[in-house]
């Protein structure tokens, strides 16, 4: 799996996180492995509550206070100013250390809802400059100049005027651009986008994605998208991790996931995408709902919703089966003893149509 030319940026191993709640402990993350390499784009896809945000909040050190990290590591590799590499385990660092050395400076995060993620009582400019002044003691004048420049970079016109405005004076799309400008303020080398377009309307979505893509290309940074929208994934990602009930169930390149999905859950997700070229006028939904992680999961967490479930799914959790060097899926269907099961015919037809269109 390791390619010598690819440089590790983030590597999450066996991450397990529990939340203490009034009803009891909730095992939100149950052994997650994720790899991200320099300059690449990774998407983590899953339903609400599958733990995709929590995973990366752990990397940012902004987990809710009732969370416990049970095990695992999040190793992050970066370069000092002189070019020498350094590797740290973010889970072993103190919050204070993460704030001082990582947050904003090396890893920045873009949040879902730009209506709520900007401080309503602080002018835009001040919010952009805050990070630079905080981390690098940048003189105010210089910070101002850089912030104006950043606003230009994210495509906001009249940046000088906007600097003095407050969030409520801007539209949703503009605010998300500001959030991106804030994220870029200290030149991070990893950008985590938590559902960056979910709260925006469709016409703005594409523009924001293009903006992030452009910024990524210009700066050569790595980007992680956390999303439930496979449309977004298709537009931006190099690699996809499908997450279900606190576990990665399938991982692969974008082509492998979209054209050769192996996990029944991925089949379900792909089938649930709206499609204009189908004769069927109903939109497929995956039956049932995700398991309540208050209760321990035995076997495959997806089994109760899976019409292809085998007997063993009830008892034993499937390991990650290797499909190719980059493609792995956690389903017993890939075991050699398992009966041959094909993906649903409708999905197969759709994929064939898409392949034809692509060629």
């Amino acid at each position, binding site marked *: 799996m390791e390619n010598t030319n690819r440089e590790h940026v983030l590597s999450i191993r066996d991450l397990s996180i529990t939340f203490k709640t009034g009803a009891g402990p909730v095992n939100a993350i149950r052994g997650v492995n994720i790899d991200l390499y320099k300059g690449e784009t990774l998407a983590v896809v899953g339903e609400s509550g599958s733990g995709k945000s929590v995973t990366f909040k752990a990397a940012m050190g902004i987990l809710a206070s009732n969370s416990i990290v049970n095990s695992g590591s999040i190793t992050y590799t970066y370069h000092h100013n002189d070019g020498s590499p350094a590797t740290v385990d973010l889970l072993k660092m103190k919050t204070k250390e993460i*704030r001082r050395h990582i947050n904003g400076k090396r890893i920045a*995060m873009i949040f879902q*809802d730009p209506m709520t993620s900007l401080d309503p009582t*602080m002018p835009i400019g001040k919010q952009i400059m805050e990070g630079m002044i905080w981390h690098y003691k940048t003189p105010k004048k210089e910070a101002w100049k850089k912030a104006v420049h950043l606003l230009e970079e994210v495509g906001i016109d009249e940046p000088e005027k906007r600097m003095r405005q407050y969030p409520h004076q801007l539209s949703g799309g503009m605010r998300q651009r500001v959030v991106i400008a804030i994220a870029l303020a200290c030149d991070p080398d990893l950008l985590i986008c938590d559902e960056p377009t979910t709260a925006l309307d469709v016409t703005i979505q594409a523009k924001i994605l293009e903006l992030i893509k452009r910024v990524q290309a210009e700066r050569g940074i790595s980007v992680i998208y956390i999303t439930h929208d496979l449309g977004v994934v298709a537009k931006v990602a190099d690699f996809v991790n499908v997450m279900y009930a606190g576990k990665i169930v399938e991982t692969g390149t974008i082509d492998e996931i979209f054209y050769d999905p192996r996990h029944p859950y991925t089949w379900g997700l792909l089938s649930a995408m709206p499609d204009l070229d189908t004769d069927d006028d109903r939109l497929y939904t995956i039956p049932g709902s995700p398991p309540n992680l208050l209760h321990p999961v035995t076997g495959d967490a997806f089994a109760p919703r899976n019409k292809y479930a085998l007997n063993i799914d009830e008892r034993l959790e499937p390991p990650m089966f290797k499909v190719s060097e980059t493609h792995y899926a956690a389903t017993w269907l890939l075991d050699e003893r398992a009966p041959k099961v094909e993906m649903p015919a409708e999905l197969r037809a759709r994929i064939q149509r898409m392949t034809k269109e692509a060629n």
Partner: protein
Amino acid sequence: MKNYILKRVLISVFTLLVITLVLFCLLQLMPGSPFNDEKLTDDQRTVLYEKYGLDDPIPVQFVRYVANMVQGDFGVSYNISKNTPISQLIQSRLPISIQVGGMAVALGAVVGLLLGVIAALNHNTILDSICTAISVLGVSVPSYVFALGLSYVFGFRLKLFPMLYSANEAFMSSVLPSVALSMFTMASIARFTRNEMMEVLGSEFMLLAESKGVTGAPLILRHALRNAMIPIITVLAPLIVDLMTGSLVVEKIFSIPGVGSLLVTAIQSNDYNVVISLSFIYSAMYIGIMLVVDILYGIIDPRIRVTGEGGRPGFFARWRRVWFGNKKKGAKA
């Protein structure tokens, strides 16, 4: 902004006029007269009525009173200290009440804010429970109980502070009454600060600020407290006036020559001019503080910056929302 303030001032003047009229009418409804002395004959009483113009029709009296008031003449006292101009009577007492009340407000607001922030930052821990216990105690125990307790412990036993107010030791002798008076303010502010801070701390912009790397006091002061401030100020403003205008019981316990006791005596003895003047001053203070608060809202939160146009929730709407919640009347905030 200028237009807005001008408009507000004009409305305030009108409001004060209405308040004076209502007070005037209400006082006429009180039983008895300022000259209730048994020894007075009917003739003497008539002479007194004539002397002070109390035999004129009410509208005439009202117009005359307002005309005098505009010139700064609030009339004289009939009873409490005969023929002393009200302004003189109040002048000697109001500063004392304001000093004691001001100290109480400062103490209550600062300690309340501190307790609230500490509780919110350490919520669901022992510290939070302690802060909550203090605020429940402060809200539910009347201030005179604190006054008696403080006076016994710190005045009588430990002899750290004088037990009674004296003008020579104005500061030291107003410490105990201020502390007693501040308890309710402190408790309410602590409670609201905690609730508001909890809400703000859970908001996404705090996560964004944290993911910028900002920590510690700048994070709390710059982002959290400022956003929590609006409801806190809404609660604090009327409490300020309450404290400034003195409390009868606490004034009695520490024998403070403040306006609280003056008002009660005046009402009991039908000393019309004293009652009207004091009520007028209270009202003016309320209205003035509300205006200041409305301007403060705009400074703290740009979203409610004053434009001079309608459609902006004013002090009362906000006050009701803070104490009684957003939707249902009577629901706890």
